[in-house]
């Protein structure tokens, strides 16, 4: 926590968790999919579902999906902007087991056809946690450049990724590994202190056993 976590942030109200946090979840999702979104199904859970309308949570998530940040004064107009930009939006309720009280599940389709489903949680202040990506655990904050690699659970993939990062002088801040079952689908979530170069991400994408690479850049 630093001085300007207390003396700020500048944000569109009314709630840091239900508005600013919700914008951030949408924003991170937009960055992760990496292309304009043409269809967004937004499923709310817990307090997001119960009090979201009064807190502008719906506008906030859509604003984030359009690439707006938490201090963007266009947030209350996000639905109209989405319409104008050709983004289809619908809302529902999420069925999450043991979901955080402020959660949203976003099912997204990008203009180039890329699909992405994430579960985002607003965990207090305007801090968030991206809990799941495409059904697998993820757990990252969106405060760091983050590399998410879906791979087959086989020996060697972690080494490939980490040695690439070392080679590019990217320091790892946190690293998590998850797998659905032994030998099944696995995911690495790596928060970095520096940005990962674009060509390295493309290189990873072509490796055998690596199924999908998603990158969240702060730039």
């Amino acid at each position: 926590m630093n001085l300007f976590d207390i003396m700020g942030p500048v944000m569109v109200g009314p709630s840091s968790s239900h508005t600013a946090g919700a914008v951030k979840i949408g924003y991170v999702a937009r960055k992760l999919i990496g292309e304009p979104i043409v269809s967004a199904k937004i499923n709310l859970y817990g307090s997001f579902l119960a009090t979201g309308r009064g807190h502008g949570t719906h506008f906030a998530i859509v604003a984030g999906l359009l690439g707006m940040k938490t201090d963007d004064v266009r947030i209350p107009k996000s639905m109209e902007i989405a319409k104008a930009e050709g983004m289809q939006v619908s809302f529902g309720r999420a069925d999450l087991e043991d979901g955080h009280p402020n959660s949203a599940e976003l099912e997204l389709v990008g203009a180039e056809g890329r699909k992405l489903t994430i579960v985002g949680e607003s965990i207090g202040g305007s801090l968030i946690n991206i809990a799941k990506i495409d059904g697998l655990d993820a757990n990252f904050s969106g405060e760091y450049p983050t590399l998410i690699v879906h791979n087959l659970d086989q020996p060697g993939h972690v080494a490939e990724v980490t040695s690439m990062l070392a080679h590019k002088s990217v320091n790892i801040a946190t690293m998590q590994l998850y797998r659905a079952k032994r030998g099944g689908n696995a995911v690495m979530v790596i928060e970095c202190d520096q940005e990962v170069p674009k060509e390295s991400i493309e290189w990873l994408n072509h490796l055998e056993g690596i199924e999908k690479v998603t990158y969240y850049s702060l730039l």
Partner: protein
Amino acid sequence: MSFARLKEITDISQEENILFWEVVLRDDMKERNVSREESFATMEGMLDAMESADNDYTPSLKSASGLAGGDGEKLEKCRQENGKLVGDFLAEVMEKAVKMGESNACMKRIVAMPTAGSCGVIPAVLLTYLNQKKVAREKIVEALYVAGGIGEVIATSASIAGAEGGCQAEIGSASAMAAGAIAYLEGGDNEAIVNACALALKNMLGLTCDPVAGLVEVPCIKRNVSGAVNAVVSSRIALSGIKSAIEPDEVIDSMRRIGRLMPACLRETGEDGLATTKSGLAIANKISKVL
């Protein structure tokens, strides 16, 4: 490192012979690895954002629930017609506090200081000071550092989240921060600053977070007024030389303990207090039909 005690700040201030606000600024430079100019510019940016939020107030705007909006204008009218009772300064403080709280509820851009719910307290006091006392802007920015130092101590040693510590942690913290800031602006020394903070916080201890329908509107918006006025009167008490009988850092400690003892139903869950009064439930019921 964030400060955990007010005494850490005042000790450094004494040892290095620099002002309270300067201690906080230097710490920010170290913590975020920025220059003095960068830190100052960021803080000035907060002042700019507070000013534009105040200028952007729209009396005709209503919040999504229909509960909030328009009260700032009533207070403005009241000040113009009959400001005598509380005097010009407090009248403007009250008006600005409500306006900011309403702007927040209406999805306008505000500065969460320390939180969105309590965003009206510090600007109400400091913008009124800037407007009426004609001080240099830099002075107000310095006062914001004073507020920030106090806020850091409270956040580290107690809490600034209603869900954790009740409203004493939000409006209470904002009020204590603002009290220290005015004490500084009025020429108070470190003693006056920390005592203003302690006196303000003592008046807010135990304040629950019980918003109707879970929205940051009732009682939040009008509580910003009481937090702001409390800051002004507490700083005046401290500036007169009166001291808090309880050590300022110990007041913050007790705020943490009280927050821990507070049941969850009074910490932003909307499960008791004002939220479950007959009127509160009736409002919630009505809102659920609009939203």
